[in-house]
């Protein structure tokens, strides 16, 4: 065969081969991405944790620790950390009785605080309230009614609660304390005052009893299934640390020779962008959580619980726009419960238990301000130089497409795409491949 013809045919075959296999892999990739959604979060978290640990591994190696030993140390620290966090999370999850008490007390506290802020003294009296109530009362009352309907115990839960009230501990005291029982009765009164029919809650939750019978069994099954999915996280973490650049090499081996050096440079820039973003995010979480913790302790919240609340708020803060709301809600709810207990030890003498909710909201907003004015610009600099509208739209699009995972990873994905596009465009020009 004529060499020119042979070359032409070879080129044609090559194009067909690459197109067909790219299409197959792309389809398969999208299919796997959609069907294995549950695995994405643990995999990505394992990958990101490994990414954060790479500089630590380098540091260990610089100090003469062999690579294998360094990986083993980091892996053990990672597993111990995961086990500690899981144990704490399980410990924090209230049992059935605590859950009922929490629900009753929360509903009572929300109603109490609402009345206090609106200047309504008595439920029975048809009061005008303060100026705030006169202006917004008509809009706020239906919201409170919905909230009460949501928080009120359903028929099955009420039976359980009343049963628990008649159960006594070894010292002869009822398991459900007197003040919680009072709150429960007050909540029932509130329900009548708001004109909510108890029947409605019963009808709404029909079938709940049946569900309750299988709840215990399904909870165990769910824990096992969740645990087995999350087992993949340490595995991914370990593989990434052991990888030794094989993954990067495999990716680069797919790049045609013409784009080889350009591909290496682009991958390195993206790698650096991800590293900077991750380290920046990690530092921001630590800075926000630490500031929040100090301020929460200052206004009188328990320091142990404050650590957990600050960490939750700090991590949630990574999610643009909505994250800060999560932090605010969690801390405000806890402050509401704490103010009800009435025993706080604030560093600042003018803070009283009654106003703890207000102070907690002030603290969260102050930390948000410090984060936006100081932490973000200092830590990130120009690393995440994205327009707020882009951030907002990306977060919305991410949550619509992939739910919570999409919301969490929308910004890092945008950062990577921006860096990828920027660097590829720049390098293509530098290598005279485009004008």
């Amino acid at each position, binding site marked *: 065969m004529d060499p020119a013809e042979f070359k032409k045919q070879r080129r044609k075959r090559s194009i067909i081969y690459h197109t067909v296999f790219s299409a197959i892999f792309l389809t398969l990739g999208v299919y796997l991405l959609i069907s294995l959604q549950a695995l994405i979060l643990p995999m990505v978290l394992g990958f990101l944790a490994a990414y954060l640990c790479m500089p630590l591994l*380098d540091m260990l*190696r610089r100090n003469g620790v062999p690579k294998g030993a360094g990986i083993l140390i980091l892996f053990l620290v990672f597993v111990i950390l995961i086990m500690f966090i899981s144990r704490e999370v399980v410990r924090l999850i209230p049992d059935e009785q605590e859950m009922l008490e929490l629900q009753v007390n929360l509903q009572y506290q929300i109603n109490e605080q609402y009345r206090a802020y609106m200047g309504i003294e008595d439920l029975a009296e048809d009061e005008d309230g303060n100026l705030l109530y006169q202006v917004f009362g008509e809009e706020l009352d239906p919201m409170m009614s919905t909230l009460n309907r949501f928080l009120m115990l359903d028929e099955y839960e009420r039976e359980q609660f009343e049963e628990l009230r008649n159960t006594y501990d070894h010292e002869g005291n009822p398991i459900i304390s007197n003040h919680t029982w009072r709150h429960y009765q007050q909540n029932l009164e509130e329900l009548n005052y708001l004109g909510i029919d108890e029947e409605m809650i019963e009808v709404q939750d029909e079938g709940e009893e049946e569900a309750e019978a299988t709840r215990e069994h399904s909870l165990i099954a769910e824990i096992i299934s969740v645990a087995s999915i999350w087992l993949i996280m340490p595995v991914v973490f370990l593989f990434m640390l052991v990888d030794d*650049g094989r993954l990067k090499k495999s990716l*680069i081996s797919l790049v045609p*020779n*013409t784009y080889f*050096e350009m591909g290496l*440079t682009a991958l*390195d820039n993206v790698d650096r962008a991800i590293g900077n973003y991750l380290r920046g995010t990690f530092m921001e979480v630590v800075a926000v959580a630490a500031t929040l913790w100090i301020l929460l302790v200052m206004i009188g919240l328990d320091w142990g619980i404050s650590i957990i609340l600050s960490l939750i708020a700090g991590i949630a803060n990574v999610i643009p726009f909505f994250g800060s709301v999560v932090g605010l809600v969690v801390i405000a709810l806890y402050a509401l419960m704490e103010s009800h207990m009435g025993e706080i030890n604030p560093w600042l003498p003018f803070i009283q238990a009654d106003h703890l909710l207000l102070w907690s909201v002030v603290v969260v907003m102050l930390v948000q301000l410090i984060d936006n004015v100081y932490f973000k610009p200092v830590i990130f600099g120009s690393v995440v130089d994205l327009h707020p509208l882009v951030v907002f739209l990306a977060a919305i699009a991410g949550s619509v497409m992939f739910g919570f995972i999409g919301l969490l990873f929308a910004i890092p994905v945008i950062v990577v795409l921006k860096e990828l596009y920027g660097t590829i465009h720049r390098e293509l020009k*530098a290598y005279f491949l485009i004008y």
Partner: protein
Amino acid sequence: MKSDGKAEKQADNVNEQFWYNHPFWANIFDWFQFSSDEDVYDVLHQIPLFEHLSHRELKTVSTLLHEREYEPEEFVFRMHQPGAAMFIVEQGEVEVIHDMDSEVFHLARLKKGEFFGELALLDNSPRSASAVAQKKTRLLAIFRADLDKLMMSQPTIGGKIMKQLAIIIGMRLKATNEQLSQVNLEV
């Protein structure tokens, strides 16, 4: 001939003692690259840049290498493009050319064990010449950023490589100076 055949058979038997050397498994676990690693060390040992590295240190360097295959007359890089990697000829031949005003100067023909584009390990300044594969060629490439990271994580190895690089560039500068003086004398 007979003894050669016997030796070959013995070698085969020795190889087959390791399960991963069996063609079936070797095919599956290709990514271990047992034999190819040794080939890479052989090539790396011959290169002045790595001659002061121990076998263990060479193993670390080999993890950074990218293996590329080029067709005859395929450009490895072109003049004036930014440099990002140094190349080592593992198999085949590469011609270094300087094309100016449509006139092509052949500067060097590089064979197995020789390297080129080493200045890219220092910065991304444009290539001063082009490199073209002369036959089917396999090259090993080492990327500047990877070497920078190696210098951070394992400064002993990085320091040795950089010192050798400085010596080589110094020697080449001397040679260029001598050639220049000779040209001046002739003129």
